[in-house]
């Protein structure tokens, strides 16, 4: 296998924001004192009049974005996922989701791979918080290229969007020019024995599991659910009809995450055994991203174990 370049998804966001800004003069950006971390510097430099430094005031930022969206602008707000969601849930709920404003909530450093800063910053509940809100679209791209393309797609889409990405450098394996289709699951590997539905950083972990599973005689189907909401139910059900068992993988709490959404679809439409690779009702801690992915059972071997468990439950 060729050696893939490693790049952070947040840089994909920065590049996507710049491109969206060049394509549409109505794209504006707010940032709460994390311009470097969110990689929003290039946008700020090229479009200084369309960039708003808000200071460390996320509530004000969120509602200002809603106010600006009123007049036809397409505002992105940028901060860490912990502060982009939990800290401002009521602001998002009232003025973005309920009021249905065209605000794009860009959330970096999501999940356990934020690393050494520890559990205060490692939000593992944000997908659940956001997917519960009516009108909200929830996107979790898997690598640099996809995050860039998802950012451009979010700018072109009319309505509230939660765009979740991360801090560490991970293999950049999706095509640079692949158009991002919101709500359309991405089939990465066809298989007949088990359906693996993954999002974010766990998609690459699942990619790594595929050849190992194949050696074990298990042909796994891998589908990248980059849009948690609206969920591509057709893709999920079509795959499960064939494989009859499911593994979900995500860098998020089991409660409220991708696995939760998939389990609901299965329970309602096509009951099948499911195993979930996710954080199970605990907070994170300090450590390197790689150490944490191992410690919280979000790594490639954990996906393989889940597959082994689920295929015998059919």
């Amino acid at each position, binding site marked *: 296998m060729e050696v893939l370049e490693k790049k952070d998804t947040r840089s994909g966001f920065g590049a996507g924001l710049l491109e969206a800004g060049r394509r549409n003069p109505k794209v504006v950006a707010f940032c709460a004192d994390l311009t470097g971390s969110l990689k929003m510097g290039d946008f700020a430099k090229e479009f200084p009049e369309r960039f708003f430094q808000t200071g460390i005031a996320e509530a004000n930022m969120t509602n200002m974005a809603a*106010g600006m969206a009123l007049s036809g602008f397409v505002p992105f707000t940028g901060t860490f996922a912990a502060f982009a969601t939990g800290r401002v849930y009521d602001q998002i709920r009232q*003025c973005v989701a309920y009021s249905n404003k065209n605000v794009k909530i860009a959330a970096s450093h999501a999940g356990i791979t934020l690393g050494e800063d520890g559990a205060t910053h490692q939000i593992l509940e944000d997908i659940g918080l956001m997917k519960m809100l009516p009108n909200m679209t929830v996107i979790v791209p898997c690598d640099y290229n996809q995050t860039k393309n998802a950012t451009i797609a979010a700018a072109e889409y009319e309505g509230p969007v939660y765009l979740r990405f991360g801090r560490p450098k991970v293999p950049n394996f999706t095509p640079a020019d692949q158009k991002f289709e919101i709500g359309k699951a991405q089939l990465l590997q066809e298989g007949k024995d088990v359906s693996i539905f993954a999002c974010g950083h766990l998609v690459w972990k699942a990619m790594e599991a595929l050849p190992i599973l194949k050696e074990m005689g298990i042909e796994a189907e891998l589908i990248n659910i980059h849009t948690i909401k609206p969920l591509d139910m057709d893709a999920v059900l079509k795959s499960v009809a064939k494989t009859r068992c499911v593994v979900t993988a995500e860098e998020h709490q089991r409660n409220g995450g991708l696995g939760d959404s998939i389990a609901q679809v299965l329970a309602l439409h096509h009951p099948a055994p499911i195993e979930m690779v996710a954080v199970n009702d605990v907070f994170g801690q300090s450590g390197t991203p790689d150490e944490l992915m191992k410690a919280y059972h979000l790594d490639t071997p954990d996906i393989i174990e889940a597959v082994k468990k689920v295929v015998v439950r059919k």
Partner: protein
Amino acid sequence: MDINELKRVASQVRRDIIRMVHGCQSGHPGGSLGATDLVTALYFDQMQIDPANFRMDGNGEDMFFLSNGHISPMFYSILARRGYFPVSELSTFRRLGTRLQGHPTTAEGLPGVRIASGSLGQGLSVAVGAAQAKRLNHDAHLVFVLMGDGEQDEGQIWEAAMYAGAKKIDNLIGIIDYNKKQIDGPTDSVMNLGDMRAKYEAFGWKVIELNGNDMQQVVDALRLARKEAGQGQPQLLLAHTEMGMGVDFMMGTHKWHGTPPNDEQAANALSQLEETLGDY
């Protein structure tokens, strides 16, 4: 509109408020009555608006945001009386299926409302965002936002106040309905606001103090603020008001914050308010 005409509109708005909260036995009459003169002057005299052709984007006109959304009866009455939607619709306030939700929303498509409010402390930030949009659009119109004094307890108000002062948002005019009462009692005992004028001035605002129930003073203050806009500072109208204004037994107490009058009390209140434009 001359001052006496504005007063006549305000009297009808106050009747509408009493009749709306009495009709559904729910809602917030006290603050609505107290803020009536401020918003009547805005919509019937001061703001450059086009009610017959409501545009969500507010481009090319002045914009108003109600941050303390619970005084919705006042807001709805004024929007209807100004021609945003039929006055007859006021009778649907807070009833199942209505566009006149308990707190203002955009979900039902009521003309005149641009964003939901009710969860307090958020409207100033929205207004700052809208004001910045006007700057980007080279739109010289102004953005007004009415806040309660109780909601000054919210930290977000001060995030927005700091931002507006630091970034010199000078096409923004904030108004505080300074009635010195909130649900649990006088603001002095719930959360002493201290020197509100000094606080906003310290955040870089220009503050105009006025009696918010004196129509002449309200119009004069709004004219002054419009004249002084564009000079590098956001402006605040610190409007001293009386909760329950116009209905004697609703004044001087916080008891009518969120309590509807019964039949007898409503009749008494309406006997004190002249019907000037015809009840809905």
